């Protein structure tokens, strides 16, 4: 059901690098987990093609004001960044 190609695709979508050994192992494990969770297909009643159901939705509003002064936390937050240039996060060239 789940082959190496599926695992490679999932790993790519998940932005995770896997070794060949891990691909094998994850494949077997994910297949056994899916086999277990598949029992939800038996549940009678509403079918999956019906209206998507997500959690309760309620709107929560707050005043549209600044909660802190600009720059108040900048230094503290950027101190956690792996690489920075001034007040910007630094990453490798994209283009």
């Amino acid at each position, binding site marked *: 059901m789940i082959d190496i190609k*599926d*695992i490679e695709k*999932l*790993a790519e*979508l*998940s*932005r*995770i*690098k*896997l070794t060949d050994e*891990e691909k094998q192992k*994850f494949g077997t*494990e*994910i297949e*056994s*987990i*899916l086999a*277990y*969770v*598949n*029992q*939800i*297909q038996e*549940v009678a*009643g*509403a079918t*999956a*093609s*019906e209206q*998507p*159901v*997500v*959690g309760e939705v309620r709107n*929560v509003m*707050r005043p549209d004001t600044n909660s802190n002064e600009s720059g108040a*936390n900048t230094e*503290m*937050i950027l*101190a*956690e*960044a*792996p*690489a920075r240039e001034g007040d910007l*996060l630094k*990453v*490798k*060239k*994209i283009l």
Partner: protein
Amino acid sequence: MIDIKNLTIKKAHESLLKGDFTVRELTETYLAEIQKKNPEINAYLEVYTDALEQADEADKRIKAGKADILTGIPFAIKDNLLIKGRIASASSKMLEKYCATYTATAVQRLVEQGAVLLGRANMDEFAMGGSTENSAYGVTKNPHDMSRVSGGSSGGSAAAVAMDGALAALGTDTGGSIRQPSSFCGTVGLKPTYGSVSRYGAIAMGSSLDQIGPITKTVEDAEIIFNVIKGADGFDSTTISDTTFAKEPYKGKKPVIGIPTAFLNQGGIDEAVLANFNESVEKFKNLGFEVKEISLPNIGYSLAVYYVLMPAEVSANMARFDGVKYGLHKDGVNMVDDYFVSRREGLGREVRRRIMLGTYVLSTGYYDAYYNKANIVRNLLREDFKKAFETVDVILTPTAPTPAFKIGSKTEDPIQMYLEDIFTVTANLVGVPALAVPSGFVEREGKQLPLGIQITAAHGREDTLFMVGKEFRSE
């Protein structure tokens, strides 16, 4: 010598007010106990060097006559709750050096009362696991038997309390992570109603399931802490207030107890657990509680539903760990490769497996069959519980299907590990509160292993849980 073995929050509070001992002496006693036991048990990843300074502040406050109930009470805090200026690693390599830039609301409310934070407690990486074996920093052993796990994911928090390395602890519970380790370690653990405790500053795992709650030695202690940390918070839009859910009168003179007999007879429960559960039911009857059989038609599917929805939410929540904004960064050949390499190096096997599983159930072509279907069944479960709470006030099950298991005995088979959550996940799926209470011991290989029962109530009815739990424990 302070008798910490028999100490509770209320007793400690009274003694501190009376001057039987100071917060400094109390804190020193716990620190000495940690020093003695933690090298083997590994409940704490870090013991804060300023614990005694915090204690002195609390002593000043008591002297000034401004003590609150938690002033000077020594706590262990799970490593996925942020405390400004301190490391919060979630037991992951990804956040090994991450220093929190703000404090979680639940922790802040303890700090405002003058509680003493002793250190951060070990856990399964990003709260994913049921044994703390997924911690990047080693397993937390069970204080009752060093060859066994402490449970998880809040295993460090539960072990810290069980080994008298803290008077109380905070944990988080996404599918049983407060209650199952409490069952294994003989502590009391509360998973509050969804939204009753702010998650601001808790490192998110499954956002429709996560809750913060206390781990303590007594039901009363859990109640005291819950009353301090609960309540609406502008930083967490899912928080509710005390009046969000109506408090219906009890169905009998005392709360009526429901037992999902058919579910319990399905098998897969350790014999000693089942025998102890039946004894607990008898005890409730002797205490004058009415006990009824109830039917929860879809409860058998709850674990399957959980293992679809939880990984789906995990895959979304874990996307933020990219090696760019904070946390571990490893260089790849280009910008995108940086993500792949950083996440590979920073995240453990269980976390990566759940991310991939979540990605699968959310992907085009599988979304309807898995994620969507699971949400439909989740709603059926909510209906089942609603119906059950029309005839009973609480539902009783064991907390876990087994006593604490041997270290390494379930690491090779994820399904075996997941089955440990069979009784606990439903409260998270439905959003109701559940309390794990110690109910006795079973002897295995000459060691006394704790067992526990789980009491579940309707939304917002923690008060019922505390009342029933206290009667059961003769508190």
